[in-house]
């Protein structure tokens, strides 16, 4: 029982990072139907930014996190402006390949500029472990979980309660109709990228703290996992992305804990396929049948 709760705790903290990343995928997908392959690399940029400002400018955790979110947001907006906006009326698969190109560019550009070495992330917060009823939980895990949850709630508030959030929802349903009622589509899409990428930037700093190591290719695997989480939850659905992220995180830690870590990813993909076969549009996705 104790190990069970231990795994839940570990799974939740890993899952919250996947969830933060998945939110970015799901928002971008919801609004322009693009699998933003470069999203995982924005997370890498966030981690590198955190590494830099903490080491060089001696930022504390909060300012490192917030500035990484700003950097993430800015890079998301820039990428959208230069790489995706010219392709908005092109076949979706073209935009997908461009996104893959951007991902390659960021990964290899960072490797070229700053070398592809793995480096230690500065531990600005001293790790303290608490034993609660036989379950080991560190302050960093709590911090990650709390930060992730706060950000997710904030995001939900922005989407549901603000004018910009309403515009985002409108554009995701029907961009042409949204434009007709006076919504600035370009602004809305930029804003969506900014929001999603800010979360990725935050996830980058959190993962740096959690795993203590970063490198230019670190975005690849979590990026794909987070995308799987978004699909699992129902891509385009914000609560779906959070739930999907937690499911994948918990699933991974459990598979690992029963000694099957070599099959960790296989189990994740298997569960994904099974869920898609039962719910073809993910857990929270709307399965829209074509009207004849």
């Amino acid at each position, binding site marked *: 029982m104790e190990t069970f709760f231990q795994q839940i705790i570990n799974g939740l903290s890993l899952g919250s990072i996947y969830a933060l990343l998945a939110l970015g995928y799901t928002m971008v*997908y919801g609004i322009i139907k693009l*699998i933003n392959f470069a999203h995982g690399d924005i997370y890498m940029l966030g981690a590198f930014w955190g590494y830099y400002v903490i080491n060089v400018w001696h930022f504390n955790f909060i300012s490192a996190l917030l500035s990484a979110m700003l950097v993430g947001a800015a890079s998301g907006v820039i990428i959208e402006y230069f*790489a995706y906006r*010219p*392709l908005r009326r*092109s*076949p979706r*698969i*073209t*935009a*997908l*390949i*461009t996104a*893959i*190109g*951007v*991902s*390659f*560019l960021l*990964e*290899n*550009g960072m*490797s*070229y500029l700053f070398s592809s070495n793995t480096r230690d992330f500065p531990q600005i917060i001293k790790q303290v472990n608490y034993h609660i009823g036989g379950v080991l939980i560190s302050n960093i895990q709590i911090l990650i979980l709390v930060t992730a949850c706060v950000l997710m709630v904030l995001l939900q508030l922005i989407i549901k309660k603000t004018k910009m959030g309403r515009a985002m929802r409108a554009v995701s349903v029907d961009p042409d109709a949204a434009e007709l009622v006076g919504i600035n589509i370009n602004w809305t899409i930029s804003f969506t990228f900014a929001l999603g990428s800010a979360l990725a930037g935050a996830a980058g700093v959190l993962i740096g703290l959690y795993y203590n190591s970063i490198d230019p290719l670190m975005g690849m695997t979590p990026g*794909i996992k987070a*995308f*799987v989480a978004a*699909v699992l939850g129902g*891509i385009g659905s914000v609560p779906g992305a959070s739930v999907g992220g937690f499911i994948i995180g918990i699933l991974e830690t459990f598979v690992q804990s029963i000694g099957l870590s*070599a*099959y960790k*990813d*296989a189990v*994740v*993909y*298997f569960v*994904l*396929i099974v869920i*898609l*076969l039962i719910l*073809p*549009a*993910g857990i929270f996705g709307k399965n829209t049948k*074509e009207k*004849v």
Partner: protein
Amino acid sequence: MKANVKYNLVWLIMMVAGFYLMNTLILVGVIDSFIENMLVTIGINIILATGLNLIIGFAGQFSLGHAGFMAIGAYATAIVTQTASTPGGFYASIFIGIVISIIAALIVGVPTLRLRGDYLAIATMGASEIIRILINNMKITGGAAGMFNIPQFADWPTVYIMVCVTTIIIVNFIHSRAGRAVKSVREDEIAAEAMGINVTKWKLAAFVLGASTAAVAGSLHASYLQTIAPNDFGIMESISILIIVVLGGVGSITGTFVAAVVLGVLDTVLQNFGALRMVIYAAALILIMIFKPSGLLGTWELSIKKIFSRSKRKERVES
């Protein structure tokens, strides 16, 4: 009927001429082993990408799991030729790879092909990863380290002939009753079904055919390079095949050839740039996509028949 024989003859002559051209260039020394290596890689990529183009471009099913089927072929050849180290063993291993990949494609395809668009892409990607992870954890496949010293039976003529054979199969499939059925599924599933097309069957047919040619490519890859590891067949490999398809033009086999050659040459030229190689490659990819969104050739197809009938029309106009 006479006309068909004529067109087919022209294609045959072109293929034989291409073979002798390469042969001569190698004998003369214009093509050194470095360039030969590049050409073989291009050939294998052509086999992979034409199969994927059949699935994506003609059947309209977004599959991201091509590398998994390639892995099956590669490991079939590696395992079989280690014990049966003869050309006969090599061809038997290709056949075994095809059979296993067809079975795998059926297992993957029957449930997942009902999914749409990006959901299908992710499901096939997952299936392909499962195949890779299984290989990664098996004894017979050498685990994560992979397999070494695979006997080399695939030289450039084998690859050249295989490129011709698989392309003929896929192109003939596309330009036939089967191809039309598959394209109708891409255009409108509901209308196709109402016209008597068994949508599930034709989706599966395209998927299985694509998967089996991927297995052939995998066999050639293993036998030519003589070393394989599970990580050669990851998501990135599936993506790089997808890049060839999209760059050439989704729905154009000619485009796939052009893109495979362009990317192969680009890759070789960029070897000189060291660490900058991938940066330039990525930038080139983005720029091509922005300025040529429907791929290098769109859906244009080289057709001897069209060239003939066009020149005939010209004659008529002139006379």
